[in-house]
């Protein structure tokens, strides 16, 4: 059984169909990229999986659990963490506090109203470990809002990692980065994903990033899946060439 099973997932906004009967299987340990031109429904798909947007039709199953109809926080509690296309952080908190708050969300006593904010040593350690894995230790003490854009993007990934998710959703992690920053970020991500311990769903515009990181690719066009398979097969697919890659090649 696949870790994530999406069946006939559909979302309509008024007369527009943003996501059109999308079905997908993501196996454990797989890095799957979702690509497609602007407006293809990639972000809506993420929002549907994480419960930010309610589905008009279809279902999402995660490890056998039906996610449809759950609110974003309980979906996250099931082990799905995400980053946002537009950087979402706690700007006044330091990078370390950001990561710690993310790690703490999985703590059973996260409601505890006493004991100081660093009372959960394991959460703090997981946060720090995540910062270190993304090379952010040297900026850990700075307010997140004052980090460089590249570091902010990485901090979002670190926050998701600190939650030790079973499925990680990355929404354009290199969005808005310079060429050098992108190269650096991709190196970091590649190292991170090398051991195949994590299942990742990745939305990305940059084809080089996609072909470097992904084991499998799903191509969306106008809300619907037009291709699905290993990178080489997708690259060769004529319909994909026409809809998407053609413009870039």
């Amino acid at each position: 059984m696949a870790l994530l099973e999406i069946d006939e997932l559909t979302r309509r906004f008024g007369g527009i169909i943003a996501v059109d009967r999308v079905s997908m299987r993501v196996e454990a340990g797989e890095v799957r990229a979702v690509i497609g031109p602007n407006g293809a429904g990639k972000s809506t798909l993420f929002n549907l999986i994480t419960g930010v947007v309610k589905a008009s039709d279809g279902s999402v199953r995660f490890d056998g659990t039906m996610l449809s109809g759950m609110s974003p926080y309980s979906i996250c509690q099931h082990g799905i963490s995400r980053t946002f296309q537009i950087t979402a952080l706690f700007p006044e908190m330091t990078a370390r506090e950001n990561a710690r708050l993310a790690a703490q969300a999985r703590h059973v006593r996260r409601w505890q109203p006493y004991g100081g904010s660093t009372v959960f040593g394991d959460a703090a350690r997981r946060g720090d470990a995540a910062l270190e894995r993304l090379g952010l230790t040297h900026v850990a003490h700075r307010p997140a809002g004052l980090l460089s854009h590249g570091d902010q993007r990485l901090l979002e990934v670190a926050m998701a990692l600190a939650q030790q998710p079973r499925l990680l959703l990355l929404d354009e992690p290199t969005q808005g980065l310079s060429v050098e920053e992108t190269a650096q970020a991709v190196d970091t991500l590649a190292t991170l994903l090398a051991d195949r311990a994590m299942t990742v769903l990745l939305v990305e515009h940059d084809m080089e990033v996609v072909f470097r990181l992904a084991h499998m690719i799903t191509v969306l066009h106008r809300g619907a899946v037009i291709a699905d398979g290993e990178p080489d097969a997708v690259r060769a697919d004529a319909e994909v060439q026409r809809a998407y890659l053609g413009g870039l090649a």
Partner: protein
Amino acid sequence: MNFSRGLAAAACVLALAPAALPPYAMTLLTEALILGLFAMSLDLMVGYTRLLSFGHAAAYGLGAYTCGNLLLHTGMPLLFAVPLAALFSGIVAIGVAWVCTLASGVSFSMLTLAFAQLFYAVAFKWTTVTGASDGLAGIPRSPGPFGIAIFAGKAGFYYLVLACLLGSLLFCRMLVHSPFGEVLRGIRENEAKTLSLGYNTRRYKIAVVAIAFALGGLAGALYAPFAGFANTELLFWLFSGQVLIMVIVGGAGTLVGPIIGAAFFMLVSNLLSSWTDSWALFFGLIFIGFVLFAPQGIWGLLSGTGRAEGRERVRWRFLKSTS
């Protein structure tokens, strides 16, 4: 200055006040401390969770009427009636917050005002409980248990108020620095992100409103036996606005600031009222001035860190860079 040392010093000075001050000043000081407690309770919502409430008088009125009724009609000792009234206020708040948190942002603020006005209107109609426009009068400071009557006197009651204020301050400080408080901070800075990290933000908001109402209710519960009466003024929307002014002028998100703000409010309104009866006009101006030019409030200015301003700058730069 270190917080606990500063607090100990302030507590000592306040504890010695009855020996030095004339009765009239003691009355003002007691009221200022009650208002300080009230303002501090609102700070949990406004300063720490960015839940802007225009209806916090509801908490005060609930506490005052509940305490007043307990003291008038059940013969319950003061020491039991006050915490019971605070508890009741907190429980009612769960229902109010459940509705208000259906909306967020500005709609939340509008709903808080609407609910406070509903309580105000109910207080006007429900004569048997609230005495309608006459209010409740002659609320006693019933002694007990075991015949403890020390709190009936002027100085004794002052010490009761002081103990409640200091205890609440320590409680709030513990709360905002706890893992729970860290989540409130997350909600203040980015609610959607907090939700996506797996926190049930609505439940956290309901919890903080309930705590704020319980402490606000405690202030109201102290006010009823302090003044000896409770009337609909305590639920009026202007009072909700005044306490918000105390929080902002004193310094939101600092706990101590709002207490200073309440003292400032008492002081200035007493000074102003001796030469003009339209002090509300000046308060409006002072308030706008602070919101425009010193959003960190008196405490922020005094402590010199200007942290609130720094925060605002950080947030603004962040918003600009991401939109």
